[in-house]
Structure formats: structure tokens, C-alpha cells
């Protein structure tokens, strides 16, 4: 439509034939457009229309009332004059006049076209002086050489003309663009000047609108939709500005044009066949504000569509709708109620339909803008539904039906539409089989027609809004739409469909602590559950609502009463309901707040003790409530590794379990190394990345995790007042270990309020339950055999629970007896029969952790042995807490020891019994010896009567007896004589209790066989180094079988020297005595002991060679009596002369 006016005043008929050819050729190719003002170069495709030269547009142009749309862009003078003379005669003047006319109007876009019909080369004149073209150029084209052009008439020279024709078209295109450059600049100037006058009284926006729109249209034709859009956007902004800023004063008379009542409220239509229908209407008979706005938006949308920027259309829609609404409000247009909603709805749907066809499913940008539009459409439909009584549960009244009729007529019919598919190649239909969609207006009308249609459309829109929001990952918005949808379902009496939407929203709001909103959602949910008849869920929700501090007290108390009422009926209904598992769990934090947990017991807590825990809990209910049971469970404390590492160097205090800050020392040094600044820093490690996008939170609306409630403290049937309650919970500490509180459970009827795991929110105190094993032990000092010894049985109960008749049995080993300790004045005290080998110690009323000592006494027989040797015994304990017997070893020291020695005096024999006192202090009495051997008599040589003798450590008592053996009873008959020594003893503490101590001795060699006598001569005096005579006399005392005896002088080498032989053998056969003389010499002065003599049995070596050696056997000590054994010899120094 690009109007290109080529004026020909010379050869009209000729040009007619060319004209269509040229006009058709122009758009065939693009042309580079070099634009002024540094605007980007562009390749454009031009179109042209021809018309006869007319002065009128030029007149307007001159006056500044022109439109670029109507303005001739190029003036062409066409001539076919090939004769120079003819040219000179007429044409030249004509051209001149034409040019002058143009110049007078300020137009410089002209062109002279010479159509050559004569082929120059075919003429006879081979060298024409000048051609007409040369002449024309000479006359007019002095500066504008390129504006004069010739072309071969293609009608006549078909083949040769092509090149010249192409040149012509190219030139025309070029000149057109040059003209555009100039004219657009000029036109813009014009627009600017007009705009500046906008506050003048007679200024009319509509005129200005067309002025600028023409420019936009030109740009559009030149395929510059973005620039065209700029023009529209400017107009849009200007219009808004007028309305919002100056709309209130009456200066703008033109505003009245737009102040038409909105009798019709057609929406936009993006696929009009006649796009400029409205433009005509605006120009001729005026339009309403809505119509004008619609037109403007449609144009903008069209241009955006040309740019293939459909998302932008969607993006602009909401702004367009609301600014228009605002304008309607500003200029106070009357309109029917609901009219604007209809308009908005239709506009929204129109854009959505466009988007739906245009966008790729994975292209998010468009969906991003569409989502709010779906939502808008849904909301507007709802408003209309409300107005027309179409909401669920309503039936339209006659007035409302009337409104529907009025609105339907106002909506109007959709104008004839172009198929998008044909119009826009970039649009495609996703599913060709789909029924052609109803136009937006039709859909709306249908929806307003019946409740069912309305509901169907509403649900469809809401679902689309939700799914689109979800598609662009705006889940929160999707949930918000879900809230509306949920409400709608509720109204539709399909609450089960609504629940999901509400709970989704609620979950998120709760997780993010939007309390006001979550309480609102709870209200919806309660309504929903009530309709569903889900009394359990309803009860829970009522309970939650009553605890919402954000709600008004009236609401809260109402729901509180509902809660209590519903709770009562819950028991009966619950069993009938096949409810979900754990459905009766509630989130404790919604109703109560756990402020503190403190263990009241002193640390550590002993197993089986009562555990007392103080729970500080805030009740959020508006009134007091009776709770059946509050349980607090605890589990074994697991120390996290990090915490353990943190505590490593810090001694862990029992109650101090809060995590410590990591404080580190920081030193800042100056450059020279000296300290600049010292500080401590504490950086808490970042627990969570602060920036994150939560799509959906994991928090559940009802806790499904129930901790292990096998270890609990609890309190039952307690009234909780609103606000802070201090509760004391009790339990039995059954198991040993380090424990940590895990979860609180509050039970009300069948509802269980479970807290989050406590470990996560507040640091619950840990406590330790430990056990102490029961123990029994015997305590004693050194034990002495033979006397009563005290021992102590010590029983520590530990955490064992004793039956009332518990006993400990003590079983003694052989010869050991035991009894309970008796008082000294007890009659049984002195009676040894009170000792028994087993003893049962009753543990009467023995309590756990009690410790008791039982004094006991043990007595063991004194062992009848001669040597002091300790004595091992043991006592075996059987305790009620253990199945194993416990043997306890006891070691007894003997109280005293007895030894005996046999002494000889000639033929007399004496028995000495030595009592050696050991650890104990004892009294000895009535010592006796007994010998049952006939012919052996023991004569008591001790003083009589014997008084008790005290004996103690390191004190010995000796008893002496003489043994008289009848001569007949020789040793040959009785090699061993057994003698029993018996003595009574008593302790100093109990002197009246006498016990017997017996000891048996074996006597051997009790008769003397030989007597030995030695005598030194000279008798009186011995001199040093003087040989003396040692006379040795061996006498047989008792008959014996030993014949050959050997004697030896065993002298000290320093004292005596034996001169001559020192040993010899004598035979006692048939003789009673032998005298032997030996020479000895004293080697030292003083009283020297007599050299000792040893007598041995001698067996001479036999004749046989094998047994050739003699043998010597010593006599046992009792058989040889040396009567001079201890004699001393006085040796004096020798005579001086001899020395």
C-alpha cells in the first residue's frame, strides 16, 4: 500500500503500459536502506502505487498538515520524446514548469524518465550529436544526474530492455528510500511540533494519534515493526498520561470523545480480518475508551506478532488491562456491573489462545507470562459468576438472568477471524484433530449461560493456571491458585478434592512460618473436613485453629468448643472409620510449646530409681484443657562425633550439655613482626546455605514418626492452663545408660500430639542412669587358729531389690566353724557348740543401696603340729542376687607351736617340750604327757600344781619330763616311742574357756649305747705348743650290736694340732671299755675347748675285691654320750726360754 506517486504530465498513455511492470518489479527484490541519524541499515522491500500528479497533497504538505501515508514519495516525469527538437520545443518547458512547481512546495523527490522507443544503433545516424537524455541531464540534472534516467521501451525491445529496466527499478527504489529518509525526518519534526502543542485548547489527541500512527504504518510497511511499535508505545504512554494526569481538568476538550458510556465491551481480537476497521471508526464517528484501547493493543500485539515476540504480548496484557481499568475509573465512565470483568476475561482468553498456539512447550518465557493470565481469567470468571448467581449452590435470580443477558449482548460477537494458521506461518496447531476452539467471547457467553458450563470453565481455568504455574516452577503461586480452587470445590460440595490443595498450601506456609496465612488456610481446611465428615481430621484441625494466636479470640474459642465437642464423639466414630495409619497423630508444636526439660534427680540416677522430670510447657489453647497423659520418652544418647571432638579437652560436666562455641585466638602482626592486635573470634560453622530455592518442603502436617516410647516419664490426667505450665513427670529408671529426651507425646482421647524430635530443636538435657551391683564381702584381720576370731560380713545392696526373707548362707570348709558374734555375757558365748559349719545370715528388711555389716565369729581347730605353718580354709557365700557361690579363702595362723627335744645325761633321758608363743596371747594350763607304751614311764619334773602360764609372741614355755624305759625294753624292741603332749589353753579375754591343745612326738634313740670320756694330761696346766696326752676312754653302757667303732679327733686347726694319728678303729667285742691315748698340742692360749671326738660305726672292708672299702656310719646323737664334751682346758703361754 506504500503509496508512491509518479506523476506524468507528458506521455500518459505510454507510461500506462510501463507502469504496471514497474510497480510489480519494485517489491521483487530488497534494497539496502541507509538511514540517517545513525540508525541501522536495513534491507527493505518496497511497494509502490502510482497516481496522477495532484497538487492537493502538495498543498497540504506545504501547510504542514500532511500525512506521510498520503504523501507522494517520488515524482516522476515520464516522456518518450526522442527528438531533440521536439524536446526543446515543448518538453523542456513542461519539465521546467513541473520542477518549479515541485520546488515551490518544497519537494525535491523527483525523477525524469525517458522512455526510448528508437533504437539508436538502428538509425542511420551513427553518431548523433546529442540525445534527448543528454539534453535533459544538461538542463535539469546538473546536480542530480542520477534523477534523469532513460529506459528502453520493453514493449519494443524485449531483449535489450531488461538491463535498462533493471537499472530503472533499482533507481526508483533508491530514490524512494532517499525520499523516505528525508520525509520521515521531516514528518517526525512535524509530530514533535504537534506534540508540543498538546496543552493548547484546540489540540485534539485524535488528530495527533493519526498523525503519529501514519508514521507507524509507514514503518510497518517498510518492515520495521519494532519502530512502528515504538510509535504505538509512545501514543499509548501519552494517552495514559493525559488521562491519569490531566484527566481531571476540563482543558482537554477532546477527552469528551472517549467519554462514551460503555454500552459494548468487546474484547480484543487478535485475528481480525479488517485490521483497520476501528481506525476508520475512530476517525469518523468516535469510539469508546475501551474500543480505542482495544485497537491500540491489537495493533501492538500485531506488531509483536510480526516480530514473533509472542511472550511480550502476554507480558503486556496485564499492564494493558489494569491501566485501562484505571483510566476507566479516572474518567468516571459509566458501565454496567461486570462489564469490565467480561472485557478483561475476553482479552485474557484471546491472548492465551494466541499463546497456546504459538509457544513451544519447553519454552518457559511465554508460560511465565501466561500463568498469571490464566489466573486472572479464572478470577474474572469467578467475579462474573458471583454477580450472575452461577457459583456452586446458587441459582440465578431473574435479575441475575437479566444481567447475564445484558452482559452477553455487551460482550458482542467475535469479529470475523482470520485463521492464525494462514495468517501467521509461525503459529501451528498442536493437535490438528482438536475441535476448533470457541472464541473467547463465545466461551464466556456459554459459561454465563448455565451453572454447569460456568463451573466447567472455572475448573478448567483454575487447573490450567495451576499447571502453568507449576510448569514455570512457581509452586507457591500454584498453591495460591489451589487455595481458590479448593474453596470452589468446597462450594461444589466436593471437599475431598479440596483437601489436597489446602494441605499443600498449609504445609508450605507452616514450614515457612507464615502464621497468619496458615491459620487462614486452617479455617478453610476445617470447613472442608466438616463437610467431608472426617471427624478425626476435623477435630485435629479445630484443635490447631484454636491454638492460632493470629486469629481472633472469638474464632479460637468457637473452634476450641468444636474441638472438645468433636473429641468426645471421636472415640465412637474413630473405630468405625477406616482411617489412615497414624491419622490420630498431631503436631505437638502447633498446640504446645516445650520450653524446658529439666531432670530433677541428682546425678547420677541409679537404676530402678524414680526419674523425676520437670517439663515446662506452654499451652496455646485459649482455655484450660485436661490432658489424659503426657509422656516424654528418652533414648540412649548418641554423641555426635564432632561434639565428642569438641569436648575432648573439656571435662564434660553433667548438666552442661550445650554445644560450646569454637573460640580461637587471632593475632595480627605488624610488618616488622610486632603484635598489632590480638582478638578472639568465634565462628559458628554455617549449618545451612542461606540461599536456596525451596520448591517444596519436607515438613509433614502430621508426624508419622513415633519414637520408641518404651522408656518414658509421664504424668496422667492433668489440666493444662493456657500459657506456661510446669509439669512433673515421673518414671522408673529401668535401664542403665546415658539418655537423652527424644519426644513428647500428649494424649487426649484418641489423639496423640507428638512433638518433633527434641534433639533437633532445643538441646534436651542428657542424664545418666547407672546401676550398682550388690556385693558381699568378709572383712577380717590376721586370723589365728584355735581361738575365736571375729570376722565381718559386709553386704552392700546396690540396686538389687531384696525379698523380705533374703538370706546369705555361709558354708565353711572342714575344721572351720562359724557363728554370729555373741555378746561376752551371752551364755552361749563360752559354748563352742554354738559354732556350726554353715550359717544363714538373714537380711531382714534389706533395702536397695543399704549397706549392712554382720559381725561373725569363726573358730578352727588348732592343728596338732610342731611347726608353725599357716592353715588354709575357706567360706563359701551364697547370695540372693547371684546364682554363683562365692568362695572366700581364709588363712589361719597357729596360735602357738610346740617342739620337743630329747636330752641325755649319762644314761638318763629327758624330754623337753617347748611351747613357743605366736600371735595370740594365751594362758596355758595343765600340761601333760602321755605314753601308752608299756615299760616306758614319763616322770613329770615340772613344778606342781601348775598355775596357768601366760604365753605370747617371742615367749617360750618349756616343760621337762624324764623318760624311764625299762631295761628290757631295748631299742631293738621299741624303735619309736610315741608321746602325746596335751595342754589346756585359754585366751586372755575368756580365761574360763579352756580348750585342749595336743601334740604327738615320736621318740627314737632314747637309750645311750656308749659313753665317751676324754682327759688331757698333764691335767692341771697345759702349756702352749707343748704336746699333751689326750686319754680317750670308750665305755659300753648298754648292750648293742655295734662292734667296730671308729674314733676321730675333730679339732679346730687354730686351737689344737693332733700329733700322730688322729683317728683309729677299736673293737668292742667282748670288752666293756677301751682307753686310747693321743698326742695333741694346743696352738693358742686361754681356755680352749677340749678337742671334740666323734665316734662312728665302722664296717671293715670285706675280703672280696668288690667290696674292699671300709664304711663309717655316724651314731644318732642320743646313742653316744660324751661326758667331757664341754670341758675346757686352760692353756698358758710356754716358758720364755723356749720361745
Amino acid at each position, binding site marked *: 500500500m506504500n503509496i508512491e506517486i509518479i506523476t506524468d504530465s507528458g506521455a500518459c498513455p505510454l507510461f500506462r503500459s510501463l507502469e504496471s511492470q514497474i510497480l510489480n518489479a519494485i517489491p521483487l527484490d530488497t534494497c539496502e536502506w541507509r538511514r540517517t541519524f545513525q540508525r541501522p541499515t536495513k534491507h527493505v522491500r518496497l511497494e509502490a502505487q502510482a497516481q496522477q500528479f495532484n497538487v492537493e497533497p502538495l498543498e497540504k504538505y506545504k501547510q504542514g498538515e500532511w500525512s506521510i501515508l498520503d504523501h507522494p514519495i517520488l515524482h516522476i516525469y515520464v516522456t518518450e520524446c526522442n527528438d531533440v527538437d521536439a524536446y526543446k520545443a515543448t518538453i523542456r518547458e513542461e519539465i521546467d514548469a513541473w520542477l518549479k512547481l515541485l520546488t515551490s512546495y518544497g519537494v525535491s523527490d523527483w525523477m525524469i524518465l525517458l522512455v526510448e522507443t528508437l533504437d539508436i544503433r538502428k538509425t542511420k545516424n551513427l553518431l548523433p550529436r546529442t540525445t534527448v537524455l543528454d539534453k535533459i541531464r544538461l538542463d535539469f540534472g546538473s546536480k542530480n544526474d542520477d534523477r534523469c534516467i532513460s529506459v528502453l521501451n520493453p514493449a519494443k525491445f524485449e531483449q535489450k530492455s531488461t538491463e535498462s529496466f533493471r537499472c530503472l527499478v533499482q533507481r526508483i527504489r533508491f530514490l524512494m528510500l532517499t525520499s523516505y529518509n528525508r520525509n520521515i525526518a521531516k514528518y517526525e519534526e512535524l509530530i514533535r511540533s504537534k506534540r508540543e502543542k498538546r496543552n493548547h485548547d484546540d489540540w485534539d489527541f485524535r488528530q495527533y494519534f493519526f498523525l503519529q500512527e501514519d508514521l507507524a504504518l509507514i514503518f510497518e510497511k517498510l518492515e520495521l515493526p519494532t519502530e512502528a511499535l515504538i510509535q504505538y508505545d509512545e501514543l499509548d504512554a501519552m494517552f495514559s498520561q493525559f488521562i491519569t494526569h490531566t484527566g481531571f481538568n476540563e482543558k482537554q476538550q477532546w477527552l469528551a470523545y472517549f467519554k462514551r458510556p460503555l454500552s459494548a465491551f468487546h474484547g480484543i481480537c487478535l485475528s481480525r480480518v479488517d485490521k483497520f476497521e476501528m481506525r476508520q471508526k475512530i476517525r469518523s464517528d468516535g469510539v469508546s475508551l475501551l474500543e480505542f484501547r482495544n485497537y491500540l493493543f491489537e495493533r501492538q500485539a500485531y506488531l509483536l506478532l510480526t516480530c514473533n515476540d509472542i511472550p511480550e504480548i502476554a507480558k503486556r496484557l*496485564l*499492564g494493558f488491562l*489494569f491501566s485501562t*481499568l484505571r483510566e476507566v475509573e479516572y474518567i468516571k465512565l459509566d458501565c454496567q456491573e461486570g462489564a469490565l470483568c467480561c472485557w478483561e476475561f475476553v482479552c485474557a482468553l484471546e491472548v492465551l489462545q494466541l499463546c497456546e498456539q504459538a509457544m513451544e512447550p519447553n519454552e518457559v518465557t511465554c508460560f511465565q507470562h501466561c500463568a*498469571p493470565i490464566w*489466573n*486472572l481469567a479464572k*478470577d474474572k470468571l469467578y467475579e462474573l459468576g458471583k454477580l450472575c448467581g452461577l457459583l456452586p449452590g446458587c441459582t440465578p435470580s431473574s435479575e441475575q438472568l437479566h444481567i447475564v443477558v445484558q452482559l452477553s449482548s455487551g460482550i458482542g460477537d467475535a469479529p470475523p477471524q482470520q485463521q492464525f494458521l494462514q495468517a501467521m506461518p509461525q503459529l501451528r496447531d498442536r493437535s490438528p484433530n482438536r475441535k476448533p476452539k470457541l472464541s473467547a467471547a463465545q466461551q464466556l457467553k456459554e459459561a454465563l449461560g448455565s451453572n454447569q458450563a460456568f463451573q466447567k470453565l472455572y475448573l478448567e481455568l483454575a487447573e490450567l493456571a495451576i499447571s502453568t504455574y507449576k510448569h514455570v*516452577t*512457581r*509452586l*507457591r*503461586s500454584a*498453591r*495460591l491458585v489451589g*487455595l481458590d480452587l479448593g474453596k470452589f470445590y468446597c462450594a461444589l460440595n466436593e471437599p475431598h478434592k479440596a483437601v489436597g490443595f489446602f494441605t499443600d498450601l498449609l504445609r508450605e*506456609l507452616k*514450614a*515457612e*512460618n*507464615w502464621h*497468619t*496465612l496458615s491459620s*487462614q488456610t486452617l479455617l478453610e481446611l476445617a470447613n472442608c473436613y466438616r463437610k467431608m465428615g472426617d471427624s478425626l481430621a476435623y477435630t485435629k484441625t479445630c484443635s490447631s485453629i484454636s491454638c492460632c494466636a493470629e486469629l481472633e479470640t472469638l474464632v479460637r474459642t468457637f473452634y476450641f468448643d468444636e474441638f472438645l465437642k468433636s473429641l468426645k464423639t471421636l472415640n465412637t466414630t474413630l473405630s468405625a472409620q477406616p482411617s489412615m495409619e497414624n491419622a490420630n497423630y498431631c503436631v505437638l508444636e502447633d498446640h504446645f510449646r516445650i520450653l524446658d526439660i529439666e531432670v530433677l534427680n541428682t546425678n547420677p540416677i541409679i537404676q530402678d530409681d524414680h526419674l523425676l522430670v520437670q517439663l515446662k510447657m506452654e499451652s496455646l489453647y485459649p482455655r484450660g484443657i485436661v490432658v489424659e497423659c503426657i509422656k516424654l520418652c528418652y533414648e540412649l544418647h548418641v554423641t555426635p562425633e564432632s561434639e565428642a571432638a569438641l569436648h575432648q579437652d573439656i571435662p564434660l560436666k553433667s548438666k552442661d550439655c550445650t554445644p560450646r562455641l569454637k573460640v580461637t585466638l587471632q593475632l595480627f602482626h605488624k610488618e616488622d613482626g610486632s603484635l598489632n592486635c590480638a582478638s578472639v573470634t568465634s565462628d559458628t560453622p554455617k549449618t*545451612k546455605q*542461606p*540461599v536456596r*530455592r*525451596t520448591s517444596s518442603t519436607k515438613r509433614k502436617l502430621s508426624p508419622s514418626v513415633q519414637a520408641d516410647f518404651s522408656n518414658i516419664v509421664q504424668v496422667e490426667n492433668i489440666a493444662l492452663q493456657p500459657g506456661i505450665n510446669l509439669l512433673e513427670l515421673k518414671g522408673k529408671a529401668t535401664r542403665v545408660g546415658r539418655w537423652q529426651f527424644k519426644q513428647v507425646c500428649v494424649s487426649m482421647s484418641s489423639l496423640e500430639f507428638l512433638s518433633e524430635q527434641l534433639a533437633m530443636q532445643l538441646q534436651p538435657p542428657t542424664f545418666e542412669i547407672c546401676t550398682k551391683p550388690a556385693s558381699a564381702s568378709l572383712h577380717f584381720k590376721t586370723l589365728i587358729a584355735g581361738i575365736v576370731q571375729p570376722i565381718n560380713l559386709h553386704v552392700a545392696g546396690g540396686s538389687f531389690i531384696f525379698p523380705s526373707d533374703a538370706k546369705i548362707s555361709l558354708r565353711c570348709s572342714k575344721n572351720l566353724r562359724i557363728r554370729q558374734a555373741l555378746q561376752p555375757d551371752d551364755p552361749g558365748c563360752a559354748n563352742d557348740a554354738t559354732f556350726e559349719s554353715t550359717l544363714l545370715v538373714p537380711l531382714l528388711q534389706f533395702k536397695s543401696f543399704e549397706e549392712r555389716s554382720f559381725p561373725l565369729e569363726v573358730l578352727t581347730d588348732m592343728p596338732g603340729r610342731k611347726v608353725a605353718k599357716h592353715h588354709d580354709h575357706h567360706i563359701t557365700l551364697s547370695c540372693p542376687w547371684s546364682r554363683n557361690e562365692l568362695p572366700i579363702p581364709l588363712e589361719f595362723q597357729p596360735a602357738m607351736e610346740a617342739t620337743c627335744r630329747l636330752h641325755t645325761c649319762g644314761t638318763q633321758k629327758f624330754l623337753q617340750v617347748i611351747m613357743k608363743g605366736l600371735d595370740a596371747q594365751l594362758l596355758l594350763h595343765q600340761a601333760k604327757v602321755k605314753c601308752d607304751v608299756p615299760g616306758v614311764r614319763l616322770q613329770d619334773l615340772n613344778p606342781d600344781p601348775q598355775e596357768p602360764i601366760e604365753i605370747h609372741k617371742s615367749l617360750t614355755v618349756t616343760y621337762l619330763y624324764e623318760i624311764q624305759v625299762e631295761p628290757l625294753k631295748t631299742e631293738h624292741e621299741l624303735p619309736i616311742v610315741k608321746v602325746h603332749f596335751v595342754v589346756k589353753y585359754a585366751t586372755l579375754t575368756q580365761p574360763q574357756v579352756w580348750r585342749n591343745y595336743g601334740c604327738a612326738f615320736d621318740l627314737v634313740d632314747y637309750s645311750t649305747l656308749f659313753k665317751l670320756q676324754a682327759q688331757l694330761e698333764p691335767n692341771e696346766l697345759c702349756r702352749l705348743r707343748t704336746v699333751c696326752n689326750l686319754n680317750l676312754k670308750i665305755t659300753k653302757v648298754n648292750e648293742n650290736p655295734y662292734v667296730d667303732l671308729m674314733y676321730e679327733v675333730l679339732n679346730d686347726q687354730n686351737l689344737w694340732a693332733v700329733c700322730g694319728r688322729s683317728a683309729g678303729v677299736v673293737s668292742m667285742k667282748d670288752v666293756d671299755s677301751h682307753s686310747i691315748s693321743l698326742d695333741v698340742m694346743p696352738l693358742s692360749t686361754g681356755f680352749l675347748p677340749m678337742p671334740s671326738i666323734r665316734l662312728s660305726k665302722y664296717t671293715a672292708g670285706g675280703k672280696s675285691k668288690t667290696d674292699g672299702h671300709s664304711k663309717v656310719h655316724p651314731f644318732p646323737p642320743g646313742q653316744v654320750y660324751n661326758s667331757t664334751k664341754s670341758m675346757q682346758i686352760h692353756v698358758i703361754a710356754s716358758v720364755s726360754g723356749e720361745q
Partner: protein
Amino acid sequence: MSTYYFVIVGHNDNPIYEREFSTANKEQRKEDQRHLSQFIAHAALDLVDEHKWKTANMQLKSIDRFNQWFVSAFITASQIRFIIVHDNKNDEGIKNFFNEMYDTYIKHSMNAFYKINTPIKSVMFEKKSDIFGRKYLLS
């Protein structure tokens, strides 16, 4: 008549300060609408999070439309989000308001007794937001 609902949202998407500014009388103000503003602000969080990575500016400007409501947002250096739901275009005023509130918020957050992400309960803060609200939003 114009209303502004201002909310500061912490790192855990939790509101830590809420305030409403309105030229309308109390009777005119519908309780229902207040919730709606809140709901809109909450729903816009997704969009704020999306936008904040697209620009280095703290001012995210008007980021969302919900029917006639605009949602404008501001994000602090520590990723605390300021959101205003409003029904009037007032870019300049909101920008100034955000800046002033940012200032106020920083001062408040420097209080050693204030823990980040917890609700702001301060008379001073309240007073300041009141002043700035009246100055930039309602005038």
C-alpha cells in the same frame, strides 16, 4: 486509594517483618484483602528467587503481577528479601522506601541481641518504617 503491603522475608522464606500502609480508612480496608496481599507476597517468593540471579541490582523492581496487584522486590546483600505488594505504580517511591528500609534493617541487624531470620520486634524499626512508608509510599 492505594495500599502497600510490605514484608521482609528471611532466609528460610519466613516473614520477619510485616507492615501495611494504606490511604484507605480502616473501615474500607477489608481483612480479606490483607490476607490476599500476604498470599501474593508469599507466592511471589519463587519469582523473587528467580529474578535475583538475573541482575546485580538489589532493586528487582516490579517482578510480578497478580491481577491488579504489583509485586516489587528488593534483595539485600545478605539475601534478605523485601517485598511490597501494591496496587499503584510508584516505582520511584518504592525504590526510595526500599533503600531507606535497607538502611534501617542493616542497623537493626547489627544489634547483637537480634538474631538473623527471627521476627523483628523493635519500636524503633516500627517507627522508621512508618516514617518512610508515609514519606515515600503514601505521599
